[in-house]
């Protein structure tokens, strides 16, 4: 028998009130990069319900270890942390085998990227990216160095709070999500122009990872917990002919 989360119904309509609007002038770059016409709403077809499937054999053993996956002459500088959490859908069910990809600045707030020219130095032992798949309970984890805040050109004195970028691929194309995780207690959160594009305070709170003293590794690393919610899908009580049903396949 299939579990409800494997029934692959249509995804619930996306609640756009919790997402930032495309045009958010306090984040200046969005002005010329935002559609001005309305989005056309589509009922899900197979094109939106399906999506790429990834396998554990595609990832390397150190892909979720940002402390070790670029260590050349020693360990990277900075606070050692573990980040973990669950990828759930809006029904509260685990999303298994979701591809979680992360990238971040080093402890000084500098990215290993040819376009980043911030004065803080590159850490020779830190790449700044990792990836993992969620397990059967939707759980993921990786370890890394806590990123530093950095200045950016928006207003002349804008700073990004410390953050880790996330990309998540669930089971369906319509669940595709890109977001950023912030850290409990960061004083720069309140004034971040990018966070402030989000209209709902509850939605902002959901992006801030609490420090989890129990999950840390004693005498080694602090832990932060970041749960992610992807869109949920409708149970298929009544077939709405999303596709012709073939009872011989898809078990």
């Amino acid at each position, binding site marked *: 028998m299939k579990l409800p989360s494997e029934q692959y119904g249509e995804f619930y309509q996306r609640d756009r009130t919790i997402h930032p609007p495309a045009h958010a002038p306090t984040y200046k*770059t969005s002005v010329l990069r935002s559609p001005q016409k309305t989005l056309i709403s589509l009922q899900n077809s197979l*094109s939106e319900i399906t999506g790429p499937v990834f396998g554990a054999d595609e990832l390397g053993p150190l892909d979720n270890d940002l402390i070790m996956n670029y260590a050349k002459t020693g360990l990277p500088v900075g606070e050692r942390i573990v980040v973990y959490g669950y990828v*759930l859908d*809006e029904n509260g069910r685990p999303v298994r085998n979701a591809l979680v990809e992360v*990238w971040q600045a080093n402890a000084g707030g500098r990215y*290993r990227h040819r376009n980043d020219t911030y004065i803080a130095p590159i850490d020779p032992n830190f790449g700044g990216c990792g990836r993992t798949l969620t397990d059967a309970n939707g759980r993921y984890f990786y370890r890394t160095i806590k990123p530093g805040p950095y200045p950016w050109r928006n207003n002349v004195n804008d700073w990004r709070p410390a953050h880790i970028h996330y990309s998540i691929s669930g089971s369906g194309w319509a669940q*595709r999500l*890109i977001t950023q995780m912030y850290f409990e207690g960061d004083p720069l959160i309140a004034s971040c122009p990018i966070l402030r594009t989000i209209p709902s305070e509850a939605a902002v709170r959901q992006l801030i990872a609490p420090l989890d003293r129990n999950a840390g590794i004693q005498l080694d690393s602090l832990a932060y917990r970041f749960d992610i919610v992807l869109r949920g899908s409708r149970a298929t009580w009544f077939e709405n002919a999303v596709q012709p049903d073939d009872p011989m396949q898809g078990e």
Partner: protein
Amino acid sequence: MTIMVNKLEYLKETASQTAGPYVHIGLAPKQAGFDIFENNFGNVLAGPKTKGERIRVEGRVIDGSGTPLRDVLIEIWQANAAGKYNHPADRQKKPIDKRFRGWGRGCSDFTTGIWAFDTIKPGAVMGRNDRPMAPHINFWIVARGINVGLSTRMYFSDEQAANARDPVLNLIEWEVRRKTLIATREERKGHVVYRFDINIQGPDETVFFDI
């Protein structure tokens, strides 16, 4: 007395945030300028044994000033040559091509803004209510300044009859806007190239979908 109803217990989707200027570090580290993973996801979808017509899809994503985005990241998702998605939810009676996942990830060139995918032309997939959809490729576009990833579809200029019947293209009330989703077929030195420029704003703004 007022009787309250129990609350429905749904979680809220996590809010989207921009991919930022350094999206390449996480999703395409070679483009950021370094080597870290053994296996890299990329813009070549078709291997030597994949079934179907070899095509290249290329274009630019253009902002409201007419400037191409040089830091955009695009993912595509498509059916195989038989019109079947490589996913268990696709229960159409059609063969899976084991040599074809149907997914790719590409970045625009930092100088020209041109991105490209090497893939095969997909077959038609059955749509809702037993109405076939014309062959198409699904696009997801993220970059600095894009707060929620943009979803659109690319159709093929040489599929006029199928496009005219496509249930999604027909949902677009303004016929003049449908052409923003149709890539132009060209032949270059014996290779088939579909050109697909995406305009984020302006009179030719591409149709984006809330999927």
